[in-house]
């Protein structure tokens, strides 16, 4: 092969994603071509450049800015609260109930109401996060963190993401559908059996949601490790979900299925019928 043909394969070779034959072809070329060989050597040498540490000041500055950001939120809220209490003081004051010209008071109240409305809609007031806004901020950030951790290369970090997602969702009334979708994806495609097993546990709590239920059933039908299949059967039996029975019958009759899974499927059928 010449350099031009190798050039098409070289980037995949650098990320170690070529098949055996193509890799052998590239390596044969590298033995005979100084130029391409040196490019690969330089790629490898780049790993000699050390990973630099930011100064400790970066973390301190981050924390300080974060604190200021949070205090900024509470200050703005404080200002809005003062405005509201002033208005309620005016509106609730006994002097308003004094017998006087009713029409004049009504006009005054209208004016105050108008001003109050303007005041509440002023930029400082609208940017004040109320509880709902803060809750939604928190949900957004939790989702972002969970989804980013589920994409980590290390299985232990992905396990941590599932544990955190479970803990957070237990403290809330509704699980985040996007996080649930990511967990279903993890159950189907994560490279680690441990992570997929953790996903089974986490998703079991949301079995009442149609997408989760479908995801669990699909995972049982797909190509899975026997451990995950057994865990899924256990879960369905615990949840008394008899919709899984047809799939368990298939397992029971399929000689290619792992013997432990078949035995477990037979047990599951007995429990559910």
């Amino acid at each position, binding site marked *: 092969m010449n350099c031009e043909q190798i050039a098409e394969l*070289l*980037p995949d*070779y*650098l*990320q*170690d994603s070529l098949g055996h034959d193509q*890799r052998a072809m590239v*390596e044969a070329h*590298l033995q005979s071509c*100084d*130029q391409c*060989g*040196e*490019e*690969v*050597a*330089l*790629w*490898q*040498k*780049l*790993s*000699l*450049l*050390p*990973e*630099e*540490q*930011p*100064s400790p000041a*970066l*973390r301190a*500055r*981050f924390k300080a*800015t*974060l*604190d200021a*950001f*949070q205090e900024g*939120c*509470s200050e703005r809220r404080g200002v809005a609260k003062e405005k509201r209490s002033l208005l309620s003081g005016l509106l609730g004051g006994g002097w308003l109930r004094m017998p006087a010209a009713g029409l004049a008071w009504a006009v005054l109240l209208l004016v105050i109401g108008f001003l109050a409305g303007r005041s509440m809609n002023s930029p400082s007031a609208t940017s004040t996060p109320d*509880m709902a806004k*803060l809750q939604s*901020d*928190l949900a*957004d*950030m*939790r*989702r*972002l*963190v969970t*989804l*980013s*951790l589920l*994409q*980590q*290369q290390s299985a232990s970090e992905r396990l941590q993401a599932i544990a955190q997602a479970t803990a957070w969702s237990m403290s809330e009334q509704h699980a985040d559908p*996007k996080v649930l*979708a*990511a967990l279903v994806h993890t159950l189907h495609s994560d490279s680690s059996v441990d992570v997929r097993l953790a996903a089974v546990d986490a998703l079991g709590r949301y079995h009442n949601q149609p997408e989760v239920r479908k995801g669990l059933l699909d995972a049982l039908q797909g190509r899975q490790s026997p451990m995950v299949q057994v865990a899924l059967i256990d879960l369905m039996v615990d949840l008394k979900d008899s919709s899984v029975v047809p799939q368990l019958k298939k397992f029971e009759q399929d000689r290619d299925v792992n013997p432990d899974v078949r035995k477990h499927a037979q047990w599951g059928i007995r429990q559910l019928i």
Partner: protein
Amino acid sequence: MSQVRSGVGEMLGVLFDRYQMPLFNFFYKLTGNRTMSEDLVQEVFFRILKYRQSYRPGTPFRAWMYQIARNTRVDFFRKQRPEVSWEPEMEPVVMPGDSAQQKQETDMLYRALLQMPEEKKEVLILSRFQGLKYEEIAQLLGCEVNTVKTKVHRALQELRELFHKPGSQRSGKGTRLEGTIGS
């Protein structure tokens, strides 16, 4: 209420712990300037907080984060007054235990990297140091995966040329390392 508010900060803290190092190294290898890199890292995290809803679940998080990082850098340079120039600090690359020759080669490699045009340097840093897959870089740059592969190859060719450029304190040719990828 304050619990919820500190929860938002805590979440940002989790991302900071996880990504401050890779982001710092991304900026530092691009610019060669430590102070500016730290400023940029700081800014990225607050943009993550600000633009968190623009992340689309199901897409690579890192591609989204580095997109923010790239935009942060572009904006930073746009805001700089023209008279302020950020020169690379060109700190010597110190690695204990290296031979004198290794130290010299590493230093030359670092200089060659810093001299590369931005676009090529960036693609090399993302793929080699930040560990992004070509698919993620393609998403980040808004191009085809094959285009990314071509860019990586061209960047390596340029790095080789700069490494051998007269004046880069190097004579002779060929510093082939023995060994192959994945072996």
